[in-house]
């Protein structure tokens, strides 16, 4: 099947928002999505964007059952490793179920890698849920390794009240 991979534009935010929700549903937590299409437009397409996007698009005659031609996306941003320097973080990678198995996911990831390498990055990082076996297998096949398993690094978060208290210096 033909498909194109290209940089996301402001006009893509509607479909990106749709697919973010689909990915959250796949991860069994759709009620956790608070970001709207408008937030994406502001945060991704203003002077200092907080993320960048890539879209996978198919021609009109291959559109999805519901009539969509934008069938996959990746959201990424640049980070920094105090050991190795510039890095790229792939926040989301998603292909609609009916378009899987055609190399679209791999092509999206490859594009993020290309852009990362062009920007001087030496590593690509991302997180995967431990029950997501098909994704884990896909990534291990691309030559990735599991930093949590191998080095025992745990992802931590401080949010909401805890963040506010920390800011106020309460203990």
């Amino acid at each position, binding site marked *: 099947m033909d498909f194109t991979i290209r940089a996301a534009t402001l006009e893509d935010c509607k479909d990106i928002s749709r697919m973010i929700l689909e990915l959250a549903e796949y991860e069994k937590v759709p009620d956790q999505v*608070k970001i709207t299409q408008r937030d994406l437009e502001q945060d991704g397409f203003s002077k200092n964007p907080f993320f960048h996007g890539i879209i996978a698009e198919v021609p009109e005659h291959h559109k999805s059952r519901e009539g969509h031609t934008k069938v996959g996306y990746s959201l990424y941003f640049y980070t*920094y490793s105090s050991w190795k320097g510039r890095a790229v973080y792939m926040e989301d990678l998603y292909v609609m179920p009916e378009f899987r198995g055609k190399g679209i996911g791999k092509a999206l990831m*490859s594009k993020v890698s290309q852009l990362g390498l062009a920007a001087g990055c030496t590593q*690509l990082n991302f*997180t995967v849920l431990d029950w997501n076996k098909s994704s884990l297998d896909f990534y291990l096949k691309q030559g990735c390794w599991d930093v*949590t398993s191998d080095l025992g690094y745990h992802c*931590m*978060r401080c949010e909401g009240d*805890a963040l506010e208290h*920390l800011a106020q210096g309460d203990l």
Partner: protein
Amino acid sequence: MANFILRKAEPKDVSDILRLIKELAKFEEMEDQVILTEKDLLEDGFGDHPFYHCIVAEVSKQHQSADGHVIVGFAMYYFTYDPWIGKLLYLEDFYVMKEFRGFGIGSEILKKLSQTAVRTRCSSMHFIVAEWNKPSIDFYKRRGASDLSLEEGWRLFKIDKQNLLKMTDEE
């Protein structure tokens, strides 16, 4: 002890920042992994689009370290994006020299970071900790941090440059 001040890092601080990065890496038994140079830190932190931000803790000359240093702690951070909740502050490195611990420097740094997070409308502060690093895990949990790897099953993955190149070649 000593009064200390916290301030934004300046280009002249890169030598101390690298020294502290290496000290922290040594503590994590990963000293040989640090390939970052002062030149990288200068280019990547103090240009038009910095890849990272840094706060340093400085003591007065009369309280300098055994080795004669006045920069005795630092935190390196940058902004990331969660498509569900928006902007986040990511804490990449956070370290206070051993001889300056127990004086509240770490707590003050964390407080300053949290204030930055709240001021810039970040919903959360994220970071990783090695599972064997019990004192740090306790320090963070006391301040309300949750362990996403344990609680939600997130595993951190990485692809290094060699495999990134391989992925882009296969296109």
